[in-house]
């Protein structure tokens, strides 16, 4: 296993996440896409940590913080989605255009 294969998996994962985030109208699908991208970033960090950096703890701490952040972010995102649903009875991203100029 080389660094390249890890990075390839990471890039694939990121692209999938990006496509999911940009193409789905459903806010929850959008959240899943964002989570995928974040995990791709974590995977990349771990790969760099494994192959490039000498001290292995740096990347692990980094990734642990990202996981913690992602958990918190999901909680906030879901509560926002809940509020949006209560207000608009819909979670279609294209219909939430109240802030358009």
């Amino acid at each position, binding site marked *: 296993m080389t660094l390249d294969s890890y990075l390839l998996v990471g890039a694939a994962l990121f692209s999938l996440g990006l496509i999911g985030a*940009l193409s789905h109208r459903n806010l929850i699908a959008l959240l899943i896409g964002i989570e995928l991208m974040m995990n791709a970033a974590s995977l990349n960090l771990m790969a760099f940590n494994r192959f490039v950096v000498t001290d292995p703890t740096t990347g692990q701490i980094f990734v642990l913080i990202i996981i913690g952040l992602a958990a918190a972010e999901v909680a906030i995102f879901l509560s926002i989605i809940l509020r949006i649903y209560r207000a608009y009875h819909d979670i279609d991203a294209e219909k939430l255009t*109240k802030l*358009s*100029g």
Partner: protein
Amino acid sequence: MDTLSLILLTTISPLACFIIAIIFLVQQPRIAQGLVLCGSAVSLLSAIGLLVQGPVEPLRFLWFQSGAIQLQFGFILDGASLMFGVVVAFITACIMLYSIGYMAHDPGKTRYFALLSFFAWSMLSFVYAVDLLQSFIFWELVGLSSFFLIGFWFEKPEAAGAARKAFLMTRVGDVGLFIGILIILQLVQNFDIPSLLDPQSGLSTQISPGMLNAITLLIFIGIMGKSAQFPLHTWLPDAMEGPTPVSALLHSATMVAAGVFLMIRLHPLFMAAQDTALIVLSIATFTAILASTIAMVDTDIKKVLAYSSIGQLGFMIMALAAGSLFAGVFHLITHAVFKALLFLCSGIYIHAYHTNSMAEIGRRGGRRLKATTFGLLIGGAALSGVPPLAGFWSKEEIFAQLGHNGFNIYMAGAFLAAFLTAYYTFRMIFLITKPDHAPASDHSHPEPMNMKAPVLLLTLGAIVLGFFGSNIAQGLGLMPQHHSVILMIPTVGIVILGILIAYFDYGRDNAPRTGFISKIAPLNTLFTNKWYIDDIYRVTIVAITHALSRILHWIEDHVLDGNYDRFGLGILRTGAKSTRIQGGWMQLYLGWAIILLAVVALYLGLR
């Protein structure tokens, strides 16, 4: 009481009444008019008290000091201010009493009485002012209060226009006056009137004659505006749009008298400036003739009286310019009384018959108002200069002065004006008392007592005041002059001639009821159109101002405002366009963000 409290009572009580009435008594007009009348009575009594005490040294209080320049507030208590202060307070009181009847049904009564009180305060403070700047402040307040009162019925466009015209025209003069005052400040750093007039160390000893001429001429421009002298006289006839008692006040003791009084105050300066005195004399003589000729043909009783005021003011200024302080003061005082009387009489007619036309008043039975017609007759005779009424003595004094100092051309002009004065005054009297056909049924109400009392009081004044000439001269600290019988003969002669011609034209049975001047068509047209002066102003100054205003308006609209508008609209449009980026579709934002990141990453990676 001591002098200070008396002078404070004289000047402050009208102000206090004004403030109380205008703030607290708008809903209680009856209380307001009583209060204002009381204030005016207090003011009159204390002014009389001051006069009885006699002249004393000026009272001065330092207002503020800036470098060498001291500005004072204070009171001059010499003969002229003491006597004229009493006249102002007396006539104001009479007119307030009269107004109770005249304005009985007016909704704005409190405002009216409060403003009268304000007017009285400004004028009294002006009369007693010791400092030139203080004089100027109250001079402007006099102008302001007459603006308010001329435009009292401001819902009438003519009245509002007349008020504006009066304000603007006097302002033209005031600019001259103010420049004159500033030059004095520049040259001698002193505003104190008594020390400016001091013959040993005053203004005339410190500056060159040319400068003195310039200063006095500038001051005279202010007087010209205020006292309605040619060419700034056209506001005064228009000012007739105000209530008649206001006209009476405006024409007798306040406003127009302020100009003459300033000249009385600064008389030594005018005497020292020989060239100015001659210019002033010519203007005043011309004004007197001009005004009298217009009064000959006008049909509106108030307009006739207005033009006669202009003419009589011309007489006063003539007297002052010819060198006689006494004649000027004397005529100012007698004129104040008989002109107030005439205006109050005309007010009663207008109140009773609702018309300003003299012929119409006569036809509707004007002479049935006995007391008023008596007042009109006495006032008119005094104005014409019929002996032994007030106007005769003071006018005779003016002629004597003009003759004494050898101003023969001006004296001829004065005689012409006096002749015309007698003519138009008796034309007015005959038109009212000898109507061309008998009046129809009598539905006029008799004069109410509070309108009759001031008229009778002033009638008495117009009869007896002429005999107090020597007292007035003594009050001014001058020797009373001896009347020369030789001069009296032509003076009386021209008056009788004027009355006779008026009788021939209007008074006798089967009179033609057209003036002799109508036989000379061009002159008649000229006089009827008021010498075209208003029209000349309309096509020159007014038209030029309007054109200039339109140009400036265009520049403002299209250049200044236009560019500001374009600037603002540009920002608005840019905003409107740029908001389209904010579609509100956040996945698009996300896409843009990632594309941007990718570009940055590529750039950094390829570098």
